């Protein structure tokens, strides 16, 4: 006779996005033998003087194809800054005070080559973004 534990074990991890240029895309992926439950995150963008309407955008891929567009921030214009958060909060009007967008979502399951992609619409080389993603990692 054997038993199988069915509770969501695993490790809680905070992934840090270092300051990265706005024209560079960041992909977070669990890799072979790992499964992630992405719980929440927050990103910060500062822009240079180049005239363009930037947005912080979050996308899920299977490693190749976009399988879901989670959403994006409001427009962040030249020479300014803004935040985008996502998580399980059911935001009401005014609830995102201090941020330029909030994406309410259930935990997101990623496995293998799946990716959480952070991209800046119209991102410039002189822009910089950074942030944090909190997730639960489980071996499969």
């Amino acid at each position, binding site marked *: 006779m054997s038993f199988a534990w069915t509770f969501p074990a695993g490790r809680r991890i905070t*992934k*840090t996005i*270092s300051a990265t240029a706005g024209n*560079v*895309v960041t992909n977070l992926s669990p890799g072979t033998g790992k499964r992630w439950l992405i719980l929440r995150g927050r990103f910060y963008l500062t822009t240079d003087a180049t005239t363009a309407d930037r947005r912080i955008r979050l996308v899920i891929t299977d490693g190749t194809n976009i399988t879901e567009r989670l959403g994006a921030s409001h427009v962040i214009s030249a020479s300014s800054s803004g935040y985008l958060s996502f998580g399980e909060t059911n935001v009401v009007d005014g609830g995102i005070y201090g941020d330029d967008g909030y994406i309410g979502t259930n935990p997101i399951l990623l496995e293998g080559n799946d990716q959480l992609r952070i991209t800046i619409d119209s991102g410039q080389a002189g822009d910089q973004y950074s942030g944090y993603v909190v997730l639960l990692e489980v071996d499969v």
Partner: protein
Amino acid sequence: MKRYKVEVEPQITLEFEAKDLREAKKKAKELKENWLKNKPQAEEVITVEI
């Protein structure tokens, strides 16, 4: 311009554009160095007893 990617730490890759492999390798090196250099360090907060 072609798209390239570099792994800056386990489970995190950066995608970028470059005109050729030579430029891509140079840029990838810069991106990885910047990533490690810019990694935020936790601010030290010291508990005091009174």
